[in-house]
């Protein structure tokens, strides 16, 4: 692989973003769209080429491209590590990004911030590529923060809406918490290995595992556990795991294309990718992996419940994303990194598809997001309906659909695991199948089936979307349908990732499944004998029953279990806790420090006091500069005498 080509992959979207962002007025709306699409398309083609080359035996590329600076023997570099894991991510990122770029042309047609939007999403693509292609922690952190910044900008894209500003501030603050952990983790790696380079750090992993550190006196912690948990806290922020998940539902304030690109397919999976990339570290800490697993399982099940009661079409998909991210995290926790990445890939396609169909519905409905005001839309927009059904079937794990393969493999992997907490995780992921099926089809039925509940305004202005939006739907529907069937065997069981992911022998649950795996079709047929399929069917049927057949029953259940409904409606009171306890007490602390520490001690004594002293001294010293030539000459001689005297006395 040649480095220029690799360099071109992130830089083309960056160049496009700069042109569209800075010269947006000059090149016009169409120009901005075309140039960014061209940039991302080129990156996509090149990424496919890279993947192709790696699949056909090219060795992984790992080398620095540019040394930014060297300080105390720690070199901070820009460098690429392109192995099959990276290449897979690059293809997914650029492909979904390309679809979203095209889709945006239609979605944002009337928006005044057209060029700005294209600049942002191209910039995002650059940042994400830098993140996945990094070969060192410094660049990883750069990409990590850069995608965060773009996400922040895009959530608040409609910056005149107070709710958007609130949402992006929330996303920003919550991610700070995660990033703090992440930074501590990186610092830990640097402390123990003295290097920011992946390869060096990974080669030290067994050594770190043997060491302990004392955080609280009297308790020795495994250094590796502390590092991994810190790194994972970063992942929890970015990948929205409980309790740092609160920002993701609110991020739906942003335009739908970015919900699809950033908050479903790519950025939120950065945490998953990072943990998979760090597998050589995580493998040495069972404690950390158990932690990962429990957090993931909790997210997978309990965020799914929230999807059940929501009526906002985008939020349902958002909670579904949270739940699916939980699934991936569970897979990481049982050392099934390849399964997590596999699910990440299939999820990227079908979740982006679901978001884009939701976006199409929203556009058709004139920016109405409440599902209670929809219904029966399948006649009005048949293509959107069918593609969203494909996405939904993939999501709930219908045999032969892409989601089925990744999800079933994931559940089986959890079942095989004997790690502490695995049985809890197994319960969560299996129960989650029912919940997923229920809320997914509740959404489908409420939106597309039943009688039309459109209000007068929506009916009058209803118009189906154009082909610039339908094209990406079709482009995403195909992989949502097929990619699992064709790739499960090579990706999971034929050692696709090679050395990119390291799993210790005793943890290798994927190999366990692999022993019973006899081809993709067989795998699908085998599911007839397993519980998840029936749970999924049960979920769909109960959704049908409650939404279409007996809507009254749903209301009575809601009244009967009003405490449960309130709990779900308030999202388990996470937001309430954050706002009233955490935010309020930290504001109180800040206010106290400001008045007591800042104003009284620092301003009063240190700043004004020392400034006063300096000013007084300056006034005195100024008198020396009298302006008289002989005084100047005199001081020169004094200086000379002092220099001489000092040394002669000491000699």
């Amino acid at each position, binding site marked *: 692989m040649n480095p220029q080509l690799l360099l071109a992959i992130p830089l083309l979207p960056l160049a496009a973003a700069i042109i569209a962002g800075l010269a947006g007025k000059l090149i016009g709306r169409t120009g901005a769209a075309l140039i960014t699409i061209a940039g991302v398309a080129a990156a996509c083609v090149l990424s496919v080429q890279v993947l192709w080359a790696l699949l056909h035996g090219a060795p992984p590329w790992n080398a620095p491209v540019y040394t930014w600076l060297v300080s105390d023997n720690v070199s901070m570099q820009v460098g690429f590590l392109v192995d099959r894991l990276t290449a897979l991510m690059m293809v997914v990122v650029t492909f979904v990004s390309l679809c979203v770029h095209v889709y945006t042309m239609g979605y944002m047609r009337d928006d005044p911030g057209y060029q700005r939007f294209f600049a942002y999403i191209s910039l995002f693509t650059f940042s994400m590529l830098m993140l996945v292609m990094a070969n060192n922690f410094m660049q990883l952190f750069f990409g990590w923060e850069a995608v965060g910044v773009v996400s922040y900008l895009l959530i608040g894209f409609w910056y005149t809406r107070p709710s958007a500003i609130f949402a992006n501030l929330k996303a920003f603050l919550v991610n700070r918490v995660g990033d703090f952990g992440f930074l501590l983790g990186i610092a830990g790696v640097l402390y123990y290995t003295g290097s920011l380079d992946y390869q060096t750090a990974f080669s030290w992993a067994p050594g770190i595992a043997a060491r302990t550190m004392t955080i609280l006196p009297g308790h020795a912690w495994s250094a590796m556990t502390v590092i991994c948990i810190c790194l994972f806290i970063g992942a929890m922020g970015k990948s929205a795991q409980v309790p740092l998940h609160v920002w993701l539902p609110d991020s739906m304030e942003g335009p739908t294309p970015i919900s699809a690109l950033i908050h479903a397919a790519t950025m939120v999976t950065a945490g998953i990718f990072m943990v998979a990339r760090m597998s050589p570290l995580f493998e040495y800490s069972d404690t950390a992996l158990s932690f990962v697993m429990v957090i993931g399982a909790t997210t997978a099940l309990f965020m799914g419940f929230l999807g059940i009661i929501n009526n906002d079409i985008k939020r349902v998909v958002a909670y579904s994303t949270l739940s699916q991210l939980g699934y991936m995290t569970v897979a990481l926790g049982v050392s099934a990194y390849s399964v997590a990445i596999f699910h990440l890939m299939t999820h990227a396609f079908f979740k982006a598809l679901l978001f884009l169909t939701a976006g199409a519905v929203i556009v058709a409905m004139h920016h109405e997001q409440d599902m209670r005001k929809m219904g029966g839309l399948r006649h009005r927009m048949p293509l959107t309906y069918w593609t969203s059904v494909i996405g939904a079937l993939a999501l709930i794990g219908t045999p032969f659909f892409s989601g089925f393969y990744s999800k079933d493999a994931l559940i089986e992997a959890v079942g095989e695991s004997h790690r502490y907490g695995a049985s809890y995780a197994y319960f969560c992921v299996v129960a989650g199948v029912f919940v997923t099926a229920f809320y997914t089809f509740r959404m489908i039925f409420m939106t597309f089936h039943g009688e039309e509940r459109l209000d007068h305004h929506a009916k009058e202005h209803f118009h189906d979307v154009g082909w610039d939006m339908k094209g990406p739907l079709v482009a995403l529907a195909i992989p949502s349908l097929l990619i699992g069937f064709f790739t499960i065997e090579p990706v999971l069981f034929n050692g696709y990732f090679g050395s990119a992911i390291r799993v210790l022998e005793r943890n290798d649950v994927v190999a366990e499944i692999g022993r019973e795996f006899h081809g993709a079709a067989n795998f699908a047929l085998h599911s007839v004998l397993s519980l998840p399929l029936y749970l999924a069917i049960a979920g769909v049927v109960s959704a049908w029953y409650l939404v279409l057949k007996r809507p009254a029953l749903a209301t009575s259940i809601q009244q009967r279990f009003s405490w449960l409904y309130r709990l779900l409606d308030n999202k388990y009171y996470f937001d309430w806790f954050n706002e009233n306890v955490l935010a309020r007490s930290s504001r109180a602390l800040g206010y106290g420090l400001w008045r007591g520490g800042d104003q009284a001690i620092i301003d009063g004594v240190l700043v004004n006091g020392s400034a006063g002293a300096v000013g007084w001294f300056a006034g005195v010293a100024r008198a020396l500069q009298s302006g008289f030539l*002989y*005084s100047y000459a*005199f001081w020169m001689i004094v200086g000379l005498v002092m220099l001489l*005297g000092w040394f002669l006395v000491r000699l």
Partner: protein
Amino acid sequence: MLVEILFYSFATIVVLAGAGVIMARNPVHAALSLVLCFLTSAVLWMLIEAEFLAIVLVLVYVGAVMVLFLFVVMMLDINIEEMRRGFRRYVVPGAVITAMLVAEIVGVIVQRRLGLDVTRGAVPLPPGYSNATDLGIALFTRYAYAIEIAAMLLLVAIIAAISLTMRRRRGLKVQDIAAQVGVRASDRLRVVKMDAEPRQ
């Protein structure tokens, strides 16, 4: 022995003359002290057999530079009291500092820790040795580069002197003869035709 007696007596004169330059109330006396200083220095150079340099010192510094200097001093009416006002204020601290400096240097010499003993005194030159020839050869071979730079230094001095003095000051009232001669009537005189005013 004779050389040493000569050296010390002339060296004393150099120091005294130097002190005279800064102590003298009259600037002309100060300039003359400087002349004395140069002359005695020339003698000191003679003692180390640098005859050519000694003569050049007398010719150039005493003969040309100091004469020019005396002219300038005499032409400018320098108010000595004005000049010395600051001086008096500095007498005490100045004396202290000077004493310290002298003490330091003397201390070094007296304790024989100067380090000069590593180099020998000047070796007597063979008879018939030409100071000027040797100097010339050295200057134009070994020190050719230094000579070139020194030449540039002189050029800069010339340019600086000219640019700081040859300058038409703004608002100066001088005659421009050429302009006066070349003036034409039409430049100075304007004939205005106007109707006679009607009688009131």
